[in-house]
């Protein structure tokens, strides 16, 4: 009798732990964390409040530029895409992508510059230019809250693999790869700051250290200086390859543009 009770009891314990494990694995299926979750509460509130988030100033500037004619063609973005920019919803979740008539991927800033040269007959804006960042922030802001959804274009696969190779390659005087910090040691601390998982969920970001809006390219260069590697030239295709891999890695995470980061 006692033995039977014991068996029933053990069975119940097993059922209970099995159920708990199931629930646990369901809620914890996606363990990826946006950098948002590793910041302090004050910064999270700053990002969430559209009148306290300094990135919104640049989104506002971007909306003004959206309606402003530019170039020899004297056309504004709004002339083709519509004044309310609703057509831009979801666009930022799909970039980098290969534009029609090309075989190389472009990031969002590159796509904006392509529009400038092709449709506005204007000069492309230089990297980290305020207007370019503001336009990118305005376009990406239309996708805030949408999951990152890299396109299924098979031509991107080679570039993505190149990006992953860069991500895992040791470089610089400190001989570190991206993966050593952001995969193997993410969540631990470096100089008192939590190492984030490096998901590009909120670019262009307003970084308090920069006191300005900056692109993912600027952030990547920052990391390269940090590991004492020589940063690639600003127009190098490596940045886009790395961004392609990072976006694939962050697939499904929600865009936060404009994100605030310390």
């Amino acid at each position: 009798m006692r033995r039977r009770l014991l068996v029933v009891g053990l069975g119940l314990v097993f059922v209970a732990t099995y159920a708990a494990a199931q629930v646990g694995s369901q809620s914890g299926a996606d363990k990826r964390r946006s950098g948002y979750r590793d910041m302090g509460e004050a910064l999270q509130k700053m990002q969430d409040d559209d009148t306290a988030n300094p990135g919104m100033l640049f989104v506002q500037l971007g909306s003004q530029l959206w309606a402003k004619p530019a170039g020899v063609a004297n056309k504004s973005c709004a002339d083709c895409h519509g004044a309310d920019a609703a057509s831009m919803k979801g666009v930022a979740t799909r970039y980098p992508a290969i534009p029609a008539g090309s075989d190389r991927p472009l990031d969002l800033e590159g796509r904006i510059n392509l529009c400038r040269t092709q449709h506005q007959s204007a000069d492309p804006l230089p990297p980290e230019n305020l207007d370019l960042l503001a336009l990118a922030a305005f376009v990406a802001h239309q996708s805030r809250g949408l999951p990152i959804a890299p396109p299924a274009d098979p031509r991107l696969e080679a570039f993505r693999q190149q990006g992953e190779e860069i991500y895992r390659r040791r470089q610089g005087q400190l001989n570190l790869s991206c993966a050593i910090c952001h995969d193997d040691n993410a969540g631990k601390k470096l100089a008192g700051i939590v190492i984030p998982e490096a998901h590009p969920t909120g670019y262009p970001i307003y970084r308090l250290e920069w006191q300005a809006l900056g692109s993912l390219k600027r952030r990547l260069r920052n990391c390269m200086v940090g590991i004492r590697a020589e940063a690639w030239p600003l127009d190098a295709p490596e940045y886009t390859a790395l961004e392609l891999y990072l976006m694939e890695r962050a697939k499904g995470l929600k865009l936060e543009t404009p994100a605030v980061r310390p």
Partner: protein
Amino acid sequence: MSNILVNAPKTAKRGDVVEIKALIMHPMETGFRPGPNGRIIPRNIIERFTATWNGAEIFAMDMSPAIAANPFVSFFAQANESGTVVLRWTGDEGFAAEHRVDITVA
């Protein structure tokens, strides 16, 4: 034109204390940093921020080079009468910006 974001209530009860938050795009260049050519970049900051409610000053502050770019200011005021709150920023290189908010007090 300056880029400004203001968060203030549209309506308030008489006697209520309301919070007004204001964010403005400005480089707040300190005047201590050398530029790419090695020369000091001239100081370019907002020197003063004021707020008036129907013309009466309700808040004012002097800003310094130690304040970060794109300064954010939050302050409180007692809502006594319906009217217009005028926020004004003035600074170096003739910088002047203004933003108006109407608040209805019932």
